[in-house]
């Protein structure tokens, strides 16, 4: 994922999507949860970057949207404590409200394509269009019988220079996930590249993210999401300049048609926004008439 978009995707409809979706947490009680959180904070620690902004904060699950189905999501993120200064012409992130509309259409049983519209609202700047992305994705079909869910997405798009010095970016994101009983695990070791902007010569960057969650009940899951950006491969950023962020999240599996996720994230390095709250509200729409004989 581009460093300015902390992404994480999981399609949330109950069945095939739900399970592999954002579930988290439980961790055998609060003590275990606290220990795990501390572990994540300590080991995933450092990071940074300028122009860091969070528009889509989500760890992708391997499932794709079924064919004939549109997943409409609204990502709402507010930076409670972020970058307070304008750097290289990029607006500060502090107290920015980001609303991102994501529309994903299932193409067949193993692929989908998504579109993003990024917006930002901030005192002094009003509501601004930030940019757009397109993201095709394919996955390993269930019929292959792999023991883990695997998919790969690639995302390309533009964002205005006022919100990111790198205006054209590309990302490829392997996605691996697994549900075991009440536990859910997902890893997104994403690679990203700047196509236009100051970092165009830096090559591939490494921006992994991961999630672990626990099903407290059929409806309520909770967990931790971790997002990092280590900078260019072969030239890993100093701890201060890496991005490291951990979210405590909950997912509400109220219906196969709905996706609901809330989280609070803490940034651990000087280049990371220090406190963000996020919410994802998604609704699945089936196109046309689906006959029981189909």
């Amino acid at each position, binding site marked *: 994922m581009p460093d300015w978009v902390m992404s994480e995707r999981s399609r949330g409809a109950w*069945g095939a999507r739900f399970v592999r979706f954002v579930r988290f947490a439980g961790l055998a009680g609060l003590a275990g949860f606290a220990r795990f959180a501390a572990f994540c904070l300590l080991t995933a620690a450092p990071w940074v970057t300028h122009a860091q902004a969070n528009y889509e904060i989500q760890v992708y699950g391997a499932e794709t949207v079924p064919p004939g189905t549109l997943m409409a999501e609204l990502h709402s993120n507010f930076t409670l404590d972020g970058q307070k200064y304008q750097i290289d012409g990029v607006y500060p992130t502090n107290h920015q409200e980001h609303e991102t509309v994501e529309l994903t259409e299932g193409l067949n049983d193993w692929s989908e394509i998504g579109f993003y519209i990024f917006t930002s609202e901030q005192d002094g700047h009003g509501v601004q269009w930030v940019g757009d992305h397109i993201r095709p994705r394919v996955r390993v079909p269930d019929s292959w019988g792999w023991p883990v869910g695997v998919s790969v997405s690639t995302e390309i798009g533009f964002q205005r220079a006022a919100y990111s010095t790198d205006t054209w970016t590309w990302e490829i994101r392997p996605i691996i996930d697994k549900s075991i009983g009440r536990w859910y695990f997902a890893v997104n070791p994403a690679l990203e590249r700047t196509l236009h902007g100051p970092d165009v010569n830096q090559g591939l960057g490494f921006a992994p993210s991961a999630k672990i969650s626990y*099903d407290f009940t059929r409806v309520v899951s909770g967990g931790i999401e971790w997002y990092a950006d280590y900078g260019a491969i072969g030239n890993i950023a100093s701890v201060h300049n890496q991005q490291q962020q951990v979210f405590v999240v909950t997912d509400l599996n109220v219906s196969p048609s709905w996706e609901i996720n809330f989280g609070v994230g803490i940034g651990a390095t000087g280049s990371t926004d220090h406190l963000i709250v996020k919410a994802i509200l998604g609704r699945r729409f089936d196109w046309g008439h689906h006959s029981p004989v189909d």
Partner: protein
Amino acid sequence: MQLTGLLGLAPSLPVFGRNGPPSDDARPSDYRLEIAPVTLDLSPSHHVRTVAYNGQAPGPLLRFKEGRPVTIEVANRSDRPEVVHWHGLFIPPDVDGALEEGTPPIAANASARYTFAPRPSGFRWYHTHTMAMNDLTRAQYGGQHGFLMIEPRDDPARYDGEFFVALHDWDGHLLASDDGAMNPGYTVATINGKVMGHGEPLRVKAGQTILLHVLNSSPTEVHWVALAGHRLQVIALDGNAVPSPQTVNMIRLAPAERACVLVEMNNPGVWVLGEVRKHVQALGMAIALEYENRSGNPVWTQPPELVWNYAQFARAQASGSHADDANAANPPGADASAESPIVVPLVFESKFRGHGAMERWTINGASYPDARVAPLIRGRRYRLQFVNRSIDDHPVHLHRHSFELRSLGVPLSGARNVAGAPGATPADIHGIIKDVVLVDANTRTDVEFTADNPGASLFHCHQQNHMDLGFMLLLDYA
């Protein structure tokens, strides 16, 4: 017991029970089944390593005479204990083929003989009755199923030929599903062990009347079957004649259900007999029916909707007494009309174990072996109220007895009266005798049977993953 020469060692084989006239342990076997690993070629590109009877799936068709004692020798060449369940027969628990009832297992690489007097007549089947748990290659997920025809002393049916057809799903793997838990999904579906286009067609002649015996041996899936260009006259369900045979466009069979249908061969051509739902037929569940002197690609006509209703086969009017129904559902000698049936509510619920696991199942709040009901009283009529408080449909099966359907699909809000509160009065139906019934999600279905076959009798959901995870109850006699 290790066997090197089955027939030579036959006199020393353990014998699982008898029914009817006494038999000698040294009695020679009438039939022989070998349980052994095999690679089945479902199609040139689909090969399944599984365990089957006599190297084939479905296993060999066994035809027994009603009431005539029979001995089946079973050699277990697999690496695990096995047991063969004779589904739909009224036979003693030690030979019925359920470990829970007390049928002894056949150890790996050992043999045993089952001896019993088969009854009642009709289309039954035999299959393994072991557990698979998370291994979706074992038990009913594999190839251990076969047709069993108990021939009546007098067969009133009129037909020119008969075909046995088994529906099965293969290559299961766990998938997330809309109930929020993991459930088996399949990549191949077959009729008689072959993907469409790779098995021998059913060959018929114009003007014939054929009798199709259709079995759903799937471990978990309900199937809908139609024969393009033809209609199906349903004359029996689960091997028992229905009071009102009806001609329908398709039949629906839950796991373990059977239907016997007459078909007039009055539309010459080459047709598809297959699953109605496109995505299942695409997995291979279809077979060609070919008229004599006709050739070409099989033709399929897609029905626009799924239609099925058990009640259409019921007696037109509730004119018969309970005694009539009881005698139809149970062996002669039952006197079930004297008293009102004893009502036994059985509430089905699931226990969530995580989105990454299959659900656990309970009957009246407890899973097997903790689920309990009062012992049955011999000779009494019972009304089982199946209250399905889950969002899954359940094909429930009662061993060693048949039951009569009495009400179907009553919305669950009206089914709360099982706890004592008044509720909707379900419409009574009569005369449909079965041993499996599909209880729709969030509904109640009532059945009645007469307790006239003493001994432990297992009741369970016939979905393999459900029975594996607690959906069983042992009924015993006082």
